């Protein structure tokens, strides 16, 4: 058990615990804040995988933007401070069963694979190579089509979300 493993275990436990709190917290705002903690934990997991870029992007996009968007939405879709009543659907036992089965099946199948027990060693510093990623993203042999489609998808999301959310009639009334 070395330091890196300890960091990983700590981050994994924190993120799993807070993920469990996300799906069980009664107040939506608490769920959103637990979600932030989960996302930070996942960022630390990325660090242990030596992907600095995605660790930072995780904080920039998820914590900085998506979590804030979710918190704004939580504030926009509540009438009272307290979320009253049960926050879990009546059929949650069935869902829990499905989920536990899925977990068992996933881990069972993964364990059959011979790479499952491989040890991840420390990569050389040039492995997390933004230069190569940048070249691959715009090279015709690489990902130029997904790259441009990503832009189209983002714009479609922007236009769609604005069209849906900004309702002129209500906007003028209040």
């Amino acid at each position: 058990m070395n330091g890196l493993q300890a960091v990983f275990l700590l981050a994994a436990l924190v993120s799993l615990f807070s993920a469990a709190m996300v799906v069980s917290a009664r107040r939506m705002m608490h769920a959103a804040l637990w979600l932030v903690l989960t996302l930070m934990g996942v960022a630390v997991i990325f660090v242990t995988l030596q992907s600095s870029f995605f660790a930072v992007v995780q904080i920039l996009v998820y914590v900085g933007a998506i979590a804030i968007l979710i918190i704004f939405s939580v504030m926009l879709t509540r009438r009272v401070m307290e979320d009253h009543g049960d926050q879990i659907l009546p059929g949650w036992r069935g869902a829990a069963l499905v989920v536990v089965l899925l977990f068992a099946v996933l881990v069972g199948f993964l364990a059959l694979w011979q790479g499952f027990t491989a040890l991840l060693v420390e990569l050389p510093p040039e492995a997390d190579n933004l230069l190569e990623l940048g070249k691959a993203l715009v090279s015709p042999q690489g990902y130029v089509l997904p790259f441009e489609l990503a832009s189209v998808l983002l714009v479609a999301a922007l236009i769609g979300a604005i069209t849906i959310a900004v309702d002129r009639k209500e906007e003028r009334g209040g």
Partner: protein
Amino acid sequence: MDFLRDPIGFVIQWYVGWLAGLGLPAVWVDVIAKLTGALVLATGAMLFVVFLIWYERKLIGRIQDRFGPNRVGPWGLLQPVADMLKIFTKEYITPIGADKFAYNLAPILAVAAVLLLWSVLPLSMTVVGTDLNVGLLFLIAVGGLGEMSYILAGWGSNNKYALLGAFRLVAQLISYEVPLVLSALVPVMLAGTLSVTGIVEAQEGVWFIVVAPAAALIFFIASIAEIGRSPFDLIEAESELVAGYNIEYSGLKFGMFFVAEFLHAFTVSLIFATVFLGGWRGPGAEEIPILGFVYLMLKTFVVYFVTILFRGTLPRFRIDQMMNLNWKVLTPLSLALIMAMAIAGGLTRDLPIFWQVMAFVLVNLLLLALTDQIMKIARRKKAKVNLAIGTGQPILTSSTKHGTGE
């Protein structure tokens, strides 16, 4: 002699050597050295705030034709210390119904998010916190963590004014992060790396503020907005909101938000000096690293001085003006800037470096001039509309706010 040329680096080397001589395992030496470095840097930054508060109050005082603090200590230098002693003994008042955890975490997180920025900044050639390969992105991402603390503060206080203030502030911060991120792309393009040390190294010949003045201007304005200072101090708009997200805070918990603000203001100046003003670069800085530190501090204080000038002289924006400045001036400008610079750089690639730089400068100046012209035309149009209102004439629908006729 070595000591005189680079005292900080010398002390660090000596300390690490001393630690290694104690017979500890190498890993522990590493951890202890890093812990000491972090402690010294963080403590230094926190104590530095005391001086910053004095500096800023003195300057603002001079701008407003007052003396500023001048009673405690020579030139009032000990005034912030006295203030600190006072705030240390103030009672914490926790409002009823507050979410204790969020309420108490918020001021800590606010300071931590700013302090963490110092971990990747190169202070001189030999004194670098750490040379992270995605340093610039790290600076932007961690700077954005502060928003979370404002949300925690506003929500944890169980007060509608605090909540409103927090959401208002966060809306402002995230809006201004758009041009900040976009204009940060320009130095990355020029330097070809995201590492802050790499960006400083790339400015060996010419500073990026010379190559890309428009990007520097956008970055600077967006940075000022990020620290929420006048003229962007909508959070503390006394005439509009009660006080903003920190209304329910008292004692040192309030003080921590204050510390975070001052430290952030200075840190943002430091980042600007590093990314656009060449960091520690200057004549002789490579031979004598301590000079680099002096240069960096000089540059930072110049930038900080300009932000204080802004604060002391400009009136506060209205919130719609502020949002318009961001969405209708800075964001389109930065988008156009990236595209124009990318194309200009691509076309002049085979030319000597001098002509490349000239092309970049030309593109920047052209875009700035164009923006200025467009803003002038827009202002004239608006003035015409206002005139029409004043004389009681009917206003044409085409010139009113678009998007309403649906």
